Structures are given as structure tokens and as C-alpha cells.
């Protein structure tokens, strides 16, 4: 029962907090009131049973707590919008009284006037419902540091007048890109091994897709995350990194791949052709056997044109090497200015090895090894170097 109560809390936290912030116009007050309501629920629900509408119960309780707090401390009331509203009713109101303001909350948390670390922390805390301690653990920083980061961010939102609303149409593309970047960053942290963050990013992605059903890039990001996450179990074997080509496909999550592809279809139906949609399409092609390398190379080409990223060009080089041979791939690699990028040297080493240019391959592996800092990646490169004969 405890697990399911936890789940209910996680599912409801974002809704309740967003509605309270919208209603109170104050992050801290809203968070305290929400926390109080959840604590009361944790104490009462196991004894008295879960109410038929948990969200409405939590919102009503939290709102009443906030009102009580304001009554106790009249000076606070000056700061809130509550003065203009009638006294809160004591009975349970229905959902309709509280609009779903999670989207407003997302755009506030991912406002470009906050630094990226703060955006990530706030999004996980408010929308994701993670505790400060959980976020700190996920990002390997002391809890006090994370708490300080959150306090500072909330203070800035209030002091600088960062709005709690969905941006106007002319600002939306940039702001949406910032929101998606935060979710992608959380996913990437998880992809590096901390699976709980990847799961959290997917959960956030699902919420965004629900809140912005007509934005192709939102679906593109969700599709990409699902398709990449589907290969999670196969990416490591006994702690060793396994490259896509060597992965045990029976470990792939077929259900996730199917879901990812369905979400991708939705993005394509919305005529999406942005960076996330393209990356999802590429991830989908990578899940095929045999892989259509020419098509993958073409999509990387399109992605490189949009993003102007040499890292994407490097991926294109790998696809071109498969479609047209290692020499064609190497020509692209050698045209890139990415000298400090370990994957450039690892890719060069691999292509040179296939061309039997072993001395050059060895020195390229050495260069990659000098730049690597992840242990699993290091061992993979060392294995590759040893196999080079």
C-alpha cells in the first residue's frame, strides 16, 4: 500500500503545486502548503482510506492550509492574490476549481533567466516531485548545495518577476526549445547510467506531450527518449559498455520501441522535421535489422544542416562509412574540427583499423584514451586497441 501511496503522491505533486502557485502567486508558500497536505494525507489515508478524488482532496487541503497560514500571518497576505478571493470553502472542491497549470509551471522553471542547473533542479523538484535529497543524489552534489540552488532559483523567480505563464506565440519557439533542452539534459544524465533520471525525463516528456499535443518537437523528444531507453538493458554487459552493433537484441524492450515509434508517427503526422523528430527517426532506424545506413546518413545530414553541429557530422560519417565504405566515412571525419572530442578519435581509430592502417589506428586510440574520463568507455577503447591486429 505504501508504494502505491508514493506513486499517487508523485503523480499528483506537479498538479497540486502548479495550481497552488497559480492561486497563491508565491512559490514558497505553495510548496509549504503542498508539503503539509501531502503529510496529512500520508498520515490519514492509510487509516481512513484514500479519498475518491485524491487530487481534489490534496488541493483543497493544501489551499486551506495556505489560507490558515496567511490568516496567522497577515503581512504575508499583502503579497498574495488571496485578498481578492472569497474565503476558502471547507468542503472538498472538484478538479474544475483548479485549472491544470503545470504548463505555466514548466515554462517558469525553464525560464532562460535562470541558469541551466537551476532550471533542471527546479523542474525535477516542482514538476517531477523529487525531493531535494533525491535530486542532490542524482547529480552527485551535497544536499545542502542542491537546497541552496533551489532557494536561490525561487528567490530569483520572485525578485526578478519571472512570469508564471505560457509565453506569447512569438516567444514560444525559443522557450519551448529551452524546456525540451532541460528534459533532454535530465535524460542524458540518466543515459550515462543513472536510470532513475532517464525514467524521470520520460515521465516529464509524457506530461509535456499531454500538455502540448500539437507540438511535433515535444513528441519527437519523447519518441527519441523511449527509443534510446528501450536499449538500456543491452548497453551494458557485466558493467562493460556494449556498442549498438554488438548488443543482444533480445534485451531490447520491444514494447518501448513500439511506443516510441507510435509517438514518432504522431510527430511526423504533425509535419515535424525538427532536431528531436530527426533524432527519434534515426533512433527508430537504428532499431531495425538490417539497418538502412543510407537513410540514416541522409537523416544525419539533415540534422547537421539544422544544428550546424560537427558532432552530428561525426555521426553522419559513421553512417556513411557503413553505407559507402570506411574511406568515405574517414574523409568526413578528417574534415571536422573536433580535435578535443574523444569520439572523433575513437571513430577515426575504428575506420583506420578497418582500412588496415594499423599504426595510425593505434595512435588514434591513444589520443581517444587520453581524452576519456568514463571508466566503462576507457575499458571499451582498451579492448578495441588490444583487438587491433
Amino acid at each position, binding site marked *: 500500500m505504501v508504494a502505491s501511496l508514493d506513486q499517487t503522491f508523485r503523480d499528483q505533486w506537479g498538479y497540486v503545486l502548479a495550481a497552488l502557485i497559480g492561486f497563491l502567486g508565491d512559490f514558497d508558500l505553495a510548496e509549504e502548503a503542498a508539503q503539509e497536505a501531502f503529510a496529512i494525507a500520508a498520515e490519514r489515508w492509510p487509516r481512513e482510506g484514500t479519498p475518491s478524488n485524491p487530487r481534489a482532496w490534496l488541493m483543497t487541503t493544501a489551499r486551506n492550509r495556505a489560507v490558515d497560514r496567511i490568516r496567522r500571518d497577515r503581512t504575508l497576505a499583502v503579497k498574495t492574490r488571496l485578498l481578492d478571493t472569497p474565503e476558502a470553502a471547507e468542503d472538498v472542491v472538484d478538479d474544475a476549481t483548479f485549472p491544470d497549470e503545470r504548463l505555466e509551471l514548466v515554462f517558469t522553471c525553464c*525560464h532562460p533567466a535562470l541558469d541551466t542547473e537551476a532550471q533542471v533542479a527546479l523542474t525535477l523538484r516542482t514538476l517531477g516531485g523529487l525531493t531535494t535529497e533525491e535530486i542532490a543524489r542524482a547529480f552527485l552534489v551535497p544536499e545542502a548545495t542542491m537546497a541552496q540552488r533551489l532557494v536561490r532559483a525561487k528567490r530569483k523567480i520572485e*525578485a526578478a*518577476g*519571472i*512570469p508564471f505563464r505560457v509565453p506569447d506565440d512569438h516567444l514560444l519557439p525559443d522557450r519551448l526549445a529551452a524546456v525540451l533542452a532541460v528534459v533532454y539534459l535530465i535524460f542524458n544524465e540518466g543515459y550515462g547510467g543513472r536510470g532513475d533520471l532517464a525514467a524521470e525525463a520520460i515521465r516529464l516528456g509524457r506530461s509535456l506531450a499531454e500538455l502540448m499535443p500539437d507540438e511535433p518537437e515535444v513528441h519527437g523528444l519523447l519518441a527519441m527518449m523511449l527509443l534510446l531507453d528501450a536499449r538500456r538493458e543491452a548497453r551494458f554487459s557485466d558493467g562493460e559498455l556494449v556498442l549498438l552493433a554488438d548488443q543482444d537484441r533480445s534485451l531490447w524492450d520491444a514494447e518501448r520501441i513500439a511506443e516510441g515509434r507510435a509517438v514518432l508517427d504522431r510527430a511526423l503526422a504533425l509535419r515535424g522535421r525538427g532536431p528531436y523528430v530527426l533524432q527519434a527517426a534515426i533512433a527508430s532506424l537504428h532499431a531495425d535489422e538490417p539497418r538502412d545506413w543510407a537513410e540514416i546518413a541522409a537523416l544525419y545530414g539533415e540534422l547537421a544542416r539544422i544544428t550546424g553541429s560537427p558532432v552530428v557530422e561525426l555521426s553522419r560519417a559513421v553512417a556513411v562509412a557503413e553505407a559507402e565504405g570506411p574511406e568515405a566515412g574517414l574523409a568526413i571525419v578528417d574534415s571536422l574540427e573536433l580535435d578535443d572530442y574523444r569520439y572523433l578519435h575513437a571513430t577515426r581509430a575504428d575506420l583506420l583499423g578497418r582500412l588496415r592502417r594499423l599504426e595510425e589506428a593505434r595512435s588514434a586510440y591513444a589520443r581517444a584514451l587520453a581524452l576519456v574520463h568514463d571508466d566503462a568507455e576507457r575499458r571499451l577503447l582498451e579492448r578495441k586497441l588490444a583487438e587491433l591486429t
Partner: protein
Amino acid sequence: MKYMLLIHQGTTPTPRDPEAWGRLSEDEQKSVFAAYQKLNENPNVTPGLQMGEPETATTVRVEDGRTLTTDGPFVELKEAVGGYLFFEADDLDAAIELAAGIPAASMGGAIEIRPLVEW
């Protein structure tokens, strides 16, 4: 909300430096004037007074009771504040939009938005 916008000219050409200013086309010069005129006509903008060049600044510190003065601004010359204005807006988004329309923002300088504390 009330905001103060601090204008850092950076490398922005201004009429005070005729040589740099002269390198702008006539259209570019006109659009700078037009942008400032638009700012001054905005009813929510309170323009600042004109500040002398950062080169004319004097910086004062007191150490052990002694007043120490140095020639120049507190920060690097090119980072010094070149002008300011006040803006009354609903929220930061409106202030960001106004700031983006100030010529220095797109011509080699930057605008710092500071909320004013209201009691």
C-alpha cells in the same frame, strides 16, 4: 514590477566616437536613433540622464580612513555602464523584450536588467 536597465555599450559605435560611428551606414545610424526614440516614447520607460564617458569616471575607496581615488570606472572600461533607464512592466519577459530592442544589445554591448525592490 519596476526594473532598471543598465546599458553597457561594449564595442557599440556611438555618436560620441565619430570615427566608429562614421563606419556605420546612414541606415544603421538612423535605426539607432529610431530605436532610442521609440524607447523614449514608451510611456512605461523613464529615461535616465545622460552619463559622461566611462573614461571620465573616478572610483573611490576608503581604506583605514584614507580616501583612495583611482582614474576610471570600478569595472573594466569596456564593461562600464554607459547609460540606464527605468521600466515599469508586468514581468521579466516584457523587460527582456524591451532590452533586446536597445541598440547596444545587438551592436557589441549588453543590457543588464535589475529588478528594483519595492517596499
